[in-house]
């Protein structure tokens, strides 16, 4: 059952490539693998915690004020992440993530999971959902940022791959983010369509 859930989070309902949610951080901080994974972990932490709380309070919160209530819950956890990052992460990572850490508050993935899943399910199932969707998000971030780092800086996770490779600077500039995500999206769609045709 866990494996099935994991497959749902990473492949069938991948938050970035299938649902197309939370695109701002995906594009903005995917310059290097390290930053991308750090962003993925920060968002996953907020997602799991907010799923737990939203699921716990789902019976007491009236429908009319549920969005502001979720916003406050999510914002509190984002503040926690901010403080944790400031205290324990290398300053270079915190600087690279910059305003995109507070912007996790308006990340559609977290909102969508709170609204569509955690507000209708018990705590245990909400935790599982947070974990698998979070892993899906981390995978997507890792994939996008490694493509950009390999092509744009000729390294992966800071390790230089080849001394003769001339990096394509465009890939670490903002347009490169659009090109990478657009290309990967098209690739996954192509694979999906091929599979459907064969079946």
């Amino acid at each position, binding site marked *: 059952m866990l494996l099935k859930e994991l497959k749902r989070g990473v492949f069938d309902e991948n938050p970035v490539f299938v649902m197309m949610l939370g695109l701002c951080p995906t594009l903005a901080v995917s310059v290097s693998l390290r930053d991308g994974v750090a962003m993925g972990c920060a968002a996953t932490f907020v997602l799991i915690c907010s799923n737990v709380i939203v699921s716990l309070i789902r019976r007491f919160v009236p429908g009319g004020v549920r969005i502001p209530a979720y*916003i*406050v819950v999510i914002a509190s956890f984002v503040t926690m992440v901010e403080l944790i990052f400031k205290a324990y992460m290398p300053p270079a990572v915190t600087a690279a993530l910059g*305003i995109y850490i*507070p912007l996790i508050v308006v990340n*559609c993935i977290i909102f969508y999971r709170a609204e569509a899943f955690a507000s209708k399910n018990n705590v245990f199932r909400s935790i599982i959902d947070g974990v698998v969707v979070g892993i899906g998000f981390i995978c997507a971030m890792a994939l996008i940022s490694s493509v950009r780092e390999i092509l744009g800086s000729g390294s992966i996770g800071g390790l230089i791959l080849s001394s003769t490779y001339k990096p394509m600077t465009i890939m670490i*500039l903002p*347009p490169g983010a659009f090109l990478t995500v657009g290309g990967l999206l098209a690739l996954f769609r*192509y694979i999906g369509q091929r599979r459907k045709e064969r079946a």
Partner: protein
Amino acid sequence: MIMDWSTYFSIAIGVIFINNFVVFRFLGLCPVIGVAKRLDVAFGYGMAATFVMTMASVVIQLLYVYVLQPNAALLQAIAPSIAEKGLLDILRTTSYILVIAVLVQLVEMFLRKVIPSLYQALGIYLPIITTNCAVLGAVLLNTTNATRDLTFPQAVAQGFFAGIGFTLAMLLMAGIRERLELAKIPKPLQDVPITFFAAAFMGLAFQGFAGM
């Protein structure tokens, strides 16, 4: 007092062209992908967002200067013991997003009563602007994450021009997508992927302003 117009001009050029919110900072991408399919809709949404961004810049700049900042005047009067450290670390994100949510709600009610014609034009887009990262991004870049210290009118100007830049990107994108509907696009590229490629080339064009 003589207004220093050149500062405002450089702020305007900076946030509209050089550091455009959509193509450079990736803020407010969801509506660009989701809403910007027709020019009139994109214009309506862009105007609503600009309006909220300007209002939010005004309110949050006041909040930042008088309440949240270390040694802020109001905080010193109410709770001198915590005034020295300020409340930015713990309350910034929460207070900003709540102010934006309340503001959007108020703006909506105000427009409905006072300027019904504008409400008719912007109304449907207003509620969803709360969760638009462009608004939160704009106020963050005005206050704690500003590249330089901004005075009150400068911060408001930056918020307003950021909205204009956002609208510009929305309009360009909508224009491109209206044309794309008539084009023959390979199936895996249809709709979103091709929009990303279009955005990439738009970003390249905007990159040309970076030398200014």
